[in-house]
């Protein structure tokens, strides 16, 4: 903890922000810059590592340490840093193409190891930097420059993927909802281990209004199923019940409040959070937002360094002379 209180301005770098006008990344950046002082950490102990894509320009705009790395590999670089410098607070900034396409392997392995990385996945369901091809989260049938008569790919649900990869903390938020996103950032930073936050992010140029259903004042109240630990899972008009062993979205008017599932983010059974993640489709009829899963499991960097500490406390620190002369030796005179 630092004795100096920092402000949003202290976390704003001198670089000119160069996203397209109206990009959802602006609001995420502003929210993160406002959130960082609440960590109570000196700036030099915070590192942002990104891959490639529009979102990956993010580290340049923050007055912390940062690496704008190569496509898909940020979790790998961040893992090496986290393991060798466990005292640092490390954020990974990535997008749907970066994290789920070219970098899918690194994402799932960082999650299963539970490396202490806070992974912010900006999902705009499109390739923006390469100017408008479909992404692994684009809805099937999407017409883009590379799919003139519609994409044939079944999209990933990033939340389902993360839960399947043994993630210990998985949440979803929306670029323009500063209050909600801030809450998710706070919960993720308290979590010990890897935390993935999927952030729905609008690309005004290549996929404008992709998330209109969760943003438009007329529809969002009904669409957004709020995941609040200890509270029934519901939107303004709908709720989630168990029926024949499956979760189901029903109109609130058709059930009583006590029939609704009360959310337990700490449920150790990943199939619970997985079932929640399946309530949303790419059509965005119903979209759970909030913390799907938040469970405790030992953090990777801590364990790696503990193994080393345990060996040293048991056998003593290594002695180079005896290592070099280990095994069978002989003297030549």
């Amino acid at each position, binding site marked *: 903890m630092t004795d100096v209180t920092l402000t949003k301005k202290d976390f704003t*770098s001198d*670089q000119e922000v160069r996203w397209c006008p109206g990009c959802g990344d602006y609001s995420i950046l502003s929210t993160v810059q406002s959130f960082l002082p609440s960590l109570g950490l*000196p*700036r*030099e*102990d915070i*590192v942002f*590592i990104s891959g*490639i894509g529009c979102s990956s320009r993010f*580290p*340049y705009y*923050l007055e*912390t*340490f*940062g*690496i*704008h*790395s*190569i496509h898909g*590999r940020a*979790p*790998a*670089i*961040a*893992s*090496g*840093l*986290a*393991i*060798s*410098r466990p*005292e*640092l607070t490390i954020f990974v900034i990535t997008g749907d193409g970066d994290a789920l396409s070219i970098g899918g*392997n*690194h994402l*799932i*392995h960082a999650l299963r190891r539970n490396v202490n990385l806070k992974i912010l996945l900006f999902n705009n369901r499109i390739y923006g930097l390469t100017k408008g091809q479909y992404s692994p989260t684009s809805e099937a049938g999407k017409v883009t420059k590379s799919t003139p008569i519609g994409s044939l790919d079944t999209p990933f649900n990033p939340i389902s993927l993360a839960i399947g990869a043994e993630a210990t903390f998985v949440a979803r938020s929306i670029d323009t909802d500063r209050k909600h996103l801030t809450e998710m950032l706070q919960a993720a930073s308290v979590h010990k281990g890897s935390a993935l936050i999927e952030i729905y992010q609008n690309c005004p140029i290549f996929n404008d209004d992709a998330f209109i259903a969760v943003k438009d004042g007329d529809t969002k109240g009904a669409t957004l199923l709020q995941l609040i630990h200890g509270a029934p899972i519901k939107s303004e008009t709908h709720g989630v019940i168990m029926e024949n062993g499956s979760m189901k979205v029903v109109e609130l008017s058709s059930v009583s409040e006590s029939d609704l599932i009360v959310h337990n983010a700490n449920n150790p059974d990943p199939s619970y959070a997985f079932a929640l993640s399946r309530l949303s489709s790419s059509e965005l009829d119903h979209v759970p937002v909030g913390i799907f899963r938040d469970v405790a499991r030992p953090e990777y960097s801590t364990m*790696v*360094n503990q*193994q*080393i500490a345990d*060996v*040293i406390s048991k*056998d*003593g*620190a*290594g002695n*180079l*002379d005896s*290592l*070099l*002369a*280990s*095994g*069978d*030796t*002989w*003297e*030549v*005179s």
Partner: protein
Amino acid sequence: MQLTGDRFTMDTAILGNDISTLPNFPAEIRAPQGTLLGVSSFQLHFADHHIQTPGDAPDVLVAMNPAALKANIRDLAKGATIIVDADEFVPRNLTKVGYETNPLEDGSLSGYKVHPIALTSLTVGTLSDLNLSRKDAERSKNMFALGLLTWMYSRPTETTEKFLTGKFAKKPDLLEANLLAFKAGWNFGETTEEFSVSYQIAPAKMPPGKYRNISGNTALSYGLIAAAKQSGLKLFLGSYPITPASDILHELSKHKKFGVITFQAEDEIAAVGSALGAAYGGAIGVTSTSGPGLALKAEMIGLGVMLELPLIVIDVQRGGPSTGLPTKTEQADLLQAMYGRNGESPVVVIAPSTPKDCFDMAMEAVRIATTYRVPVFILSDGYIANGSEPWRIPTDAELPDLHVEFAPTEENFMPYSRNPKTLARPWAVPGTKGIEHRIGGVEKADQTGAISYDPTNHDFMIRTRAAKVAGVQVPDLEVDDITGDAQVLLLGWGSTFGPIAAAVEALRENGQKVAQAHLKYINPFPKNLGDVLARYERVIVPEMNLGQLAMLLRSQFLKDITGYNKVRGLPFSTTEIIEATMAVLGD
């Protein structure tokens, strides 16, 4: 078989003989026994004088079955001794490898001293009092053979007995079986008339000191641990298992008490990525791999070039391309290391010459990487990685000082300012107050490190990165030209040192004038290399590739090079280098 070879090597080294080994085994973990494909061998050369190679033509072959005999007999010296397990020479095994008649009986081995010994039944008989399955009993026949050889060559028995006691500490029945088999083999040699001559090899002359036997992969690992101590930095290895480099991961993972962190990553890219991340944090970031893995790491190494961070890339080369020959040796990754990245992407390339040299070159890699903040390649290969030789253990005082300074807290910190002498940028690690900055793979503006698309800046940065690597200080090339008037220079790099040195020795004994030099620094080349090349009328470069170093030399020095190239997955033999040199001398 590899274990038997290792033990015999140790017992021989302890006796003070010089040694050189060549383990040779199939890629398959349990390749079908008794087939030509499944033959695993271990070649050892020992002598009372300094030797350079595992030898071209063994004088003794121990063949545990007909397949082993067939696979190795063409390498043997005329009149060599052949010891075979006679129990295995049954019709079924003979037909499996294409012997129509039994070579032990048909006279085809009349040029050799053949000793058919019933190794299997002797071993099983020895162990009959133990409560062992026949299969477990048969497994001990390697130890019977080792005992026999130990007697034949008067090697000490104590070290193997001690080794077995440690290895089977928790399996007393197997320990007893192996010890009994080992002793029985020794006793067999002593008592049978067949081996009436017992060899005595006198110790070789080596500089005084404490010695041990060491393989290239172990020496590399120890060199890195020593470098961590000498620099005061943490050692981080990010690696993905791959033959023949995995032993570096295994070795380093054993040494946690030195604070060594090993990270078995999800793939080759993550392995080098984690090493680069650790380097960013102030550790010695190392990744170890072989050719196919190196291909995958290319983009991340390019990022290392751009970020100008220390990064050590160990490539234990094997036969390529693609999966190639995983367990065989080759030197065909040189151009991949030099140029296998997008853009103008200079890196430092060094190559150890022998197993023990790997220790010194690992420390050299750390010195260069941390001084110049640049990726450094160590090009080892399967031959020196698995081969071993006696190594005089260095004393503390002989190890170099590798101390480095991180960037301190300062106002107006410039992440891409440079040390005027080395052209290195500051090593600015997270956690240092006041020097928060952003770096990345996009072209950097000079000094500030901000994103820059400025044409002049790009040209300047490209040239600066190239100049930095070109300016790395490396020792001058030493030339061994004892008469001073040789016209032919044999110039090697990497693991070819042994066979070339042996060939030069033999040529000189024959009255030929030849000079020898060996490149351990390939990028940058030693400053005097151009002068050395100019001094010789003919320069022969033997390489286990189709002429990669020759191509670099021709392009940099406009010197005609005579390549001697073989890519058979095996180290050069001394004889073939002698013949190639004689052909040039006779021109």
